[in-house]
């Protein structure tokens, strides 16, 4: 994977609007066939970065290379884009709307109609094809918008906050669809401020905060490097078992769980053994991987 040519390369890209710097010296690589998470809080510069990738704006300095070429308008047809701020023609019928956006991506004729029907079927919208867009619920419009991003079978799909406004059933449907796209060899850039979602879907991540990159890399490696040797516990009785400074550095209550941060170098198995031997009823014993949220907070504190 690592030695294949990246789909997208950003090299020291900077973009400012007047006094305000939206993206500052950002470099990143997106590899083919993977889900790449662009994560960070609102206003971090995610949307501006994406706008440069889809050639809506041009960087002030630095270069963007897509599919091995410098950015140009012909490449736009190979990108599918779901913007954060959704927009559909309210008065157009769903089918016509999809047809128009397909034509804008140079897809027309019978092939376009076939794909529109297939996608509507897949996202359970077939019954709405002849309805005006404004008659649809917000979640349905969201799905229509998603179809406009993938109808022309692009090699790179960019999804900006794809889950906002969706109910849990549709979130699952959307997740499943994204994973199918990846399985079909597409490269996906997922921009979100919801870290839990990124955690579940992304192969690689790039965290940005206040226009700058905080860290990037494979998600699994990042989490491993931030591992803190912590255990989440649930057990009945046996108070004071955790009060062993040689093993447990400190504890905190986290909902139902007790989270025990072990002394560096201590083996979690030792703790488990001690719990079982003392006869308490252990209902949960889990090694805690740090969440992206925690990593993000830690990195931001570090760089501040």
């Amino acid at each position, binding site marked *: 994977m690592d030695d294949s040519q990246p789909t997208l390369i950003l090299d020291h890209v900077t973009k400012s609007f007047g006094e305000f710097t939206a993206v500052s010296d950002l470099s990143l690589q997106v590899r083919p066939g993977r889900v790449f998470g662009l994560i960070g809080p609102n206003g971090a510069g995610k949307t501006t970065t994406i706008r440069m990738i889809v050639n809506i704006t041009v960087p002030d300095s630095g270069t963007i290379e897509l599919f091995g070429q410098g950015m140009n308008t012909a490449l736009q047809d190979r990108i599918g884009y779901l913007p954060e701020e959704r*927009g559909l023609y309210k008065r157009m019928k769903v089918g016509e709307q999809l047809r128009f956006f397909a034509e804008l991506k140079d897809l027309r004729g019978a092939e376009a109609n076939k794909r529109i029907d297939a996608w509507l079927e897949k996202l359970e919208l077939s019954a709405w094809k002849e309805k005006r867009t404004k008659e649809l619920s917000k979640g349905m419009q969201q799905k229509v918008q998603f179809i406009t991003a993938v109808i022309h079978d692009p090699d790179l799909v960019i999804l900006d906050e794809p889950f906002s406004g969706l109910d849990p059933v549709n979130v699952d449907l959307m997740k499943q669809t994204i994973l199918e796209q990846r399985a079909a060899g597409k490269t996906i850039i997922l921009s979100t401020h919801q870290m839990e979602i990124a955690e579940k879907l992304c192969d690689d991540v790039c965290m940005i905060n206040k226009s700058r990159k905080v860290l990037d890399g494979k998600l699994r490696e990042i989490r491993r490097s931030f591992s803190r040797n912590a255990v989440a516990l649930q057990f009945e009785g046996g108070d004071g078992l955790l009060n062993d400074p040689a093993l447990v550095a400190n504890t905190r209550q986290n909902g139902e769980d007790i989270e025990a941060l072990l002394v560096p170098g201590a083996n979690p198995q030792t703790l488990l053994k001690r719990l079982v031997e003392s006869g308490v009823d252990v209902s949960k014993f889990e090694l805690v991987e740090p969440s992206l949220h925690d990593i993000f907070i830690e990195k931001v504190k570090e760089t501040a």
Partner: protein
Amino acid sequence: MKKFLAVVKREYIQRVRTKFFVVATILGPVMMAAFTVVPALMFTIKAGGPTRLAIIDQTGKLYERVAKDLVSGKDRRGRSEAPEPQMQPPVGPDASKEQINQAGKMIKGSFVVEEARLDKRSLDEVKNDLEARIQSRNLDGYVLLPSDLLKNGQPEFRARNTADPFTRDTVESAISRAVRGQRLVDAGIKEEAVEKASQPVDLKTIEAGGKESKGEASFFFVFGLGLLIYMSVLLYGQLVLGAVIEEKETRIAEILFSSIRSFPLMMGKLVGVSLVALTQMGIWAAAFLIISAWVAGGSSITLPHIPPIVFVYFSLYFLMGYFIYSTVYAVVGSMVTTTQEGGQLAMPVVLMLIAGFFLSFNIIRSPNSSLAFWASMFPFFAPITMLVRIVTETPPLWQILLSLGIGAATIVGLVWVASRIYRVGMLMTGKKATIPEVWRWVRQA
């Protein structure tokens, strides 16, 4: 190019299919008819009766002349169609037979005149008598021609409605003519000679080429074009404005810009909306021709004598004028966030069209002056000023082609500017741009 056509198609079909378009297309001619037929109808209602005048002739010579003049309506040559706006009770159920007869007569002359003789009564008695008749609405007014009128006396006009300037003018000039005629006869000139001498002339206009021309018709032709451009810009400029602002309000622009460059997008919008306008105007024109042919009852409509090539220029300059001013709306639309703001901003530019009108008054007198040349090259004036020159004293072909070329370049240039402002403005979400900002956007986009 295919993407451009996709935009054109969408703009066109989405608009033509709306109920609004269908209703407006049908109501348009109905409104037009209403505006022409209803006033005509109202005039006929008003013309319930002629103006009834009594004349006290103390000179004893003038009554015949004045009465003849008023009744024949000779004075109102040119506007004899327009009935006198004298307020009269309409012919109703209580109208006497006489009034109905008079109403029939007034179609030719709108005055009914009687002589009020003194017959041994004093002048004041007669006046009081007439006054009473005016009060009882038996009479609309009377004229007193004093005995010294033929020397330097002043006639008097007493009427219920002295504010009506048309009647006043008509009476005044009738008396003037009568006095002039009588003075000539008194000076020993024969009656027939006087009549002959007062025949007005009818100026016949001949173009330098030798053929008879209808100068007036040409002028109204150009005036008509100006009006047509003005109306269509006012009617459809808002549509262009709306089309450009639509994506801003719905935030579709972001997807569009990720798929198509802003110039073909803007051009596609302009062309799509304009086709809607042309479709609607085409339907109206067809309806107008059919209806007028039907009204004319088979007799062909007499068009003013205008060579066919002028119709070609007419179409070209109409399109040029329409597109130039519509593009102004596109530029404005790219700067603002709501249609209301846009309408206000576009107005000053549209007023340039009016300036073109004023210039054409000067140009029609000297169509080959350098003012005429430059005014007909300036694209915002050219649709009117160049056409004035074409129908008066046709300039060399290269000048016509040059002005059309400048016009086309202006349109493309304005669309280009609009598309740049649009593209950058879209990214600066939801705020109205200031002029310096707009200028920066044009350069940086």
